[in-house]
């Protein structure tokens, strides 16, 4: 088949590929501009509104300004998810972030206190747990965050049914610089959110951000 014939024959496929690549480009631009707008970068602070506007423009192209449930928005979102292109590729950027750590403080009737970390069986799940903690830290809707803490605490309570209360503390680990490490300094833990769960019935959880 001649080349001109191929172009004509596969014109719909070429159109699909063009739309697909434009979607990837738009998602990449949205996430990159968002990173520049929110994270500390080498760009001046004064440029933040520009990056914000640019990210908003890219979001607009992706239909994110449309109402939830809008068919066009649903269509684009579903396609992006199905093709695995709904997120950009800013891995470890602009800087490698602090890693989060979740610690459970278990209190017993005899005033004893024990500490425990989330439990997973496989090493590969440890990376996923890290991802989960990063996302919990980013959740801005308080009831949602509290529900997630409750879910994470539940298996701990199952393993320690005699505990009367559990405090779940999420914080980030401040890692020493190479120079500090050489001086023997260790990492420090900075609590961000803490939730107390009284394991006696009908006592509500309390948050201490």
């Amino acid at each position, binding site marked *: 088949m001649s*080349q*001109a014939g*191929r*172009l004509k024959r*596969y014109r719909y496929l070429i159109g699909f*590929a063009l739309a*697909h*690549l434009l979607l*990837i*480009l738009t998602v*990449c*631009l949205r*996430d*990159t501009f968002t990173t520049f707008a929110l*994270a*500390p*970068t*080498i*760009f001046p602070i004064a440029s933040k509104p520009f990056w914000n506007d640019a990210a908003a423009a890219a979001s607009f192209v992706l239909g994110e300004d449309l109402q*939830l449930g809008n068919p066009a*928005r*649903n269509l684009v*979102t*579903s396609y992006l*998810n*199905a*093709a*695995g*292109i709904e*997120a950009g*590729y*800013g891995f*470890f*950027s*602009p*800087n*490698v972030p*602090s890693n989060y750590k979740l610690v459970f403080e278990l209190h017993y009737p005899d005033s004893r206190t024990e500490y425990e970390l989330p439990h*997973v*069986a*496989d*090493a*590969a*799940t*440890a*990376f*996923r747990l*890290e*991802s*989960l903690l990063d*996302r919990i830290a980013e959740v801005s809707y308080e009831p949602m965050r509290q529900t*997630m803490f409750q*879910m*994470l605490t*539940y298996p701990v309570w199952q393993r320690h049914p005699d505990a009367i209360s559990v405090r779940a503390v999420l914080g980030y680990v401040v*890692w020493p*610089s*190479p120079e500090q*490490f*050489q001086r023997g300094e260790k990492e420090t833990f900075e609590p961000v959110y803490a939730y107390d769960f009284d394991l006696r019935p009908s006592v509500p959880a309390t948050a201490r951000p």
Partner: protein
Amino acid sequence: MTVRSTFQRIEQFLFYQESDRWVSVLRIGLGLQVIFLSLALRRDWTYLLSSGGRALISRDLTEAALNAESPFIPRLGWLIEVGNHFGVPESITLWLTWLFLILAGCLLVVGLFSRIAAILAWFLYLCVVRSVGYFSYGVDNLTIIGLFYLMIAPLGDRMSLDSILWHRSSNRDLLPFFRRILQIHLCLIYFFSGISKLAGIGWWNGASLWRALTVPPFHFVNPELVVRWKMLLPAAGLAICALELFYPIFIWLRPTRTFWLVSICTMHLMIGLTMGMFLFAFIMIVLNLAAFATFESFTRRLRAPPVSAILQY
């Protein structure tokens, strides 16, 4: 340049003589990736994917958030509902999903019923990743990207059992076309990854690389060893940024292509070895080789008569 010549250039770019080896690499690589990922999650499978109080984060919560995004995004809840309809409990459906993922991976590796296996692997893995939600990370999206391209690519490459048993062959017209999409996608991935890294001061002064290598759970190398080479961290950080940022240029130029491809694959290999992200490294190497490796010379070498045979004459 006339409109006609522009079209000719586009045609030449999209439709050229292409070997089907890249499809073999993508098919076998993704088959192995699906098997490895499923095996890696084996012991935590129901702990991550169950609903109610049996999971670390209930699937109900993840799928509710997913539903708010769009009700049409595939998820495990759909399969569980179908299972419930036939009286199959959730845990059995979850394990059947796991088994079918392994099966699809095996079929992809040998190239038997490749199209069905590719669709099955894509759909099941997509359901798992979307339902696991908060636990997903980069490797999952890159695997879905690969499976998506594999699903729509012309399958039936010469190394597959489909081709050997039933003489099914790839649509040769479309082989280069789909490879171009993958190539451009990889260029976008690296360009935006590189430019985002360069915007952070940590990649200029070596702090980001230091943290990437030493902060848990990525601390596969003794920090004492890393700190001994701290003078090299800024240069190494910038080299990574440069490798990614200029990938879309130097990977296309014939004189630099092999060097850039080997360098980027070495970078991913090092990420795998020093940070323990083996599956991330593996999928990136597979995608790079499928997109940009040149197979002709390798194939020619395989077909060449052995040295002993040449020496006899």
